[in-house]
């Protein structure tokens, strides 16, 4: 069975990270059903490319594929919605106009988990992506830079901006 070991190992190595994949897709797409579709696409792609997996952090490896699939979906979404010109942000990131209130509006509310969740969901997409990978997936700056395809310095400044927007939510809770 030469050559088969990497592919047959897929379930063992990647399935433990399925929840992380779903979580990232859900936070980026803000829709559970579409997130699951994206994860399924990503896993099919991951199975195809699994032979190229070289034993790095499997979670980071899978999340990078998930992130790419999610971005393709966001771009398709924007095209369907005939987004106006100029929505293409840095690193080709496209996001739909969000019907929910912006972070500032959300921040003025009560300090509870629901508010924090809403504020995170309302962050600009490229900031939300960085913060989720850092805080929820606990990946290193280097890994986040690799997944999001930007320099480490950009990761740090996005993280700082994301946190600065969310910090007022918890500021009163700590002295």
């Amino acid at each position, binding site marked *: *069975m*030469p050559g*088969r*070991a990497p*592919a*047959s*190992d*897929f*379930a*063992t*190595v990647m*399935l*433990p990270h*399925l*929840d992380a*994949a*779903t*979580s990232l897709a*859900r*936070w980026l797409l803000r829709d*559970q059903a579409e*997130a*699951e579709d994206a*994860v*399924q696409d990503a*896993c*099919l792609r991951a*199975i195809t490319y699994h032979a190229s997996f070289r*034993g790095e*952090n*499997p979670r980071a490896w899978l999340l990078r594929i998930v992130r790419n699939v999610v971005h393709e979906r966001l771009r398709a979404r924007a095209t369907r919605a005939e987004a106006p010109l100029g929505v293409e942000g840095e690193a080709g990131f496209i996001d739909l106009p969000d019907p929910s209130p912006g972070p500032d509006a959300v921040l003025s509310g009560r300090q509870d*988990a629901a508010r*924090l*969740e809403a504020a*995170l969901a309302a962050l600009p997409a490229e900031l939300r992506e960085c*913060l989720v990978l*850092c*805080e*929820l997936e606990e990946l*290193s*700056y280097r890994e986040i830079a690799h997944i999001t395809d930007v320099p480490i310095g950009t990761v*740090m400044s996005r*993280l*700082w901006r994301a*946190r600065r927007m*969310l*910090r007022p*939510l*918890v*500021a009163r*809770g*700590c*002295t």
Partner: protein
Amino acid sequence: MTDPMADNACARMEFLLQADHDNELDVAATAELAAHLAQCPHCRAAQAELAALSRGLRELPRPTASDRLRASILAAAPLAPRIAPRKWGSRLVPVGAGLALAASVALVAFVPRGPNLEAEVVSSHIRALQPGHLTDVVSTDQHTVKPWFNGRLAYAPPVKDLAAKGFPLVGGRLDYVDGRPVAVLTYRHALHEIDLYVWPAATATAPAKEATRDGFNTVTWIQDAMAAWAVSDLERSELENFAKLWRAEP
């Protein structure tokens, strides 16, 4: 806040503060930050806010993969070549997707007979960490665990309890590594599980070697003609300490 020089210093500290929070700061910068924090209540408050935000974010409900998604991915994943399955019946969870997962993982377990024993042992350890799969015999008494292997293996694995040294034995199980059933002893240290795989070796002794794979550390050695693999997410130094204590134990 009224001193413009202090504000400049604080602005410079922002990324240090954040990098420190994310465990990305080197020693020199850590010292610089510590010195600043000692005399800046503003940055101490910012530090506390970063920590509070982390706690808040990590307590948010996590979206998880549905059973349907899990099952559909298992169906798409390439299955391993067939090898006589081991008795999994008693440990299967009677839930649709769970069953599919366990069945598929059981098949995958028999695949690698290749040179990469380390990958095989780490995979086996990861599978064992899945709920309900950890131990076949649960006992902190080595005199219960050792006889349990009688009749289940063609050799008697050395069973040692290191409770007095901070690594209590919590049980044992059989697993299938390198094409044969092997003894696995499970130890605990703080919240970490350590699996120790033991089987007869071709040579009498070999020095310890260590490696890291998928975030798990392994230490392997041969002693008294028994090959041993210790696998855990424990810090490398602590796992090495475990290996040293285990080898020194009579």
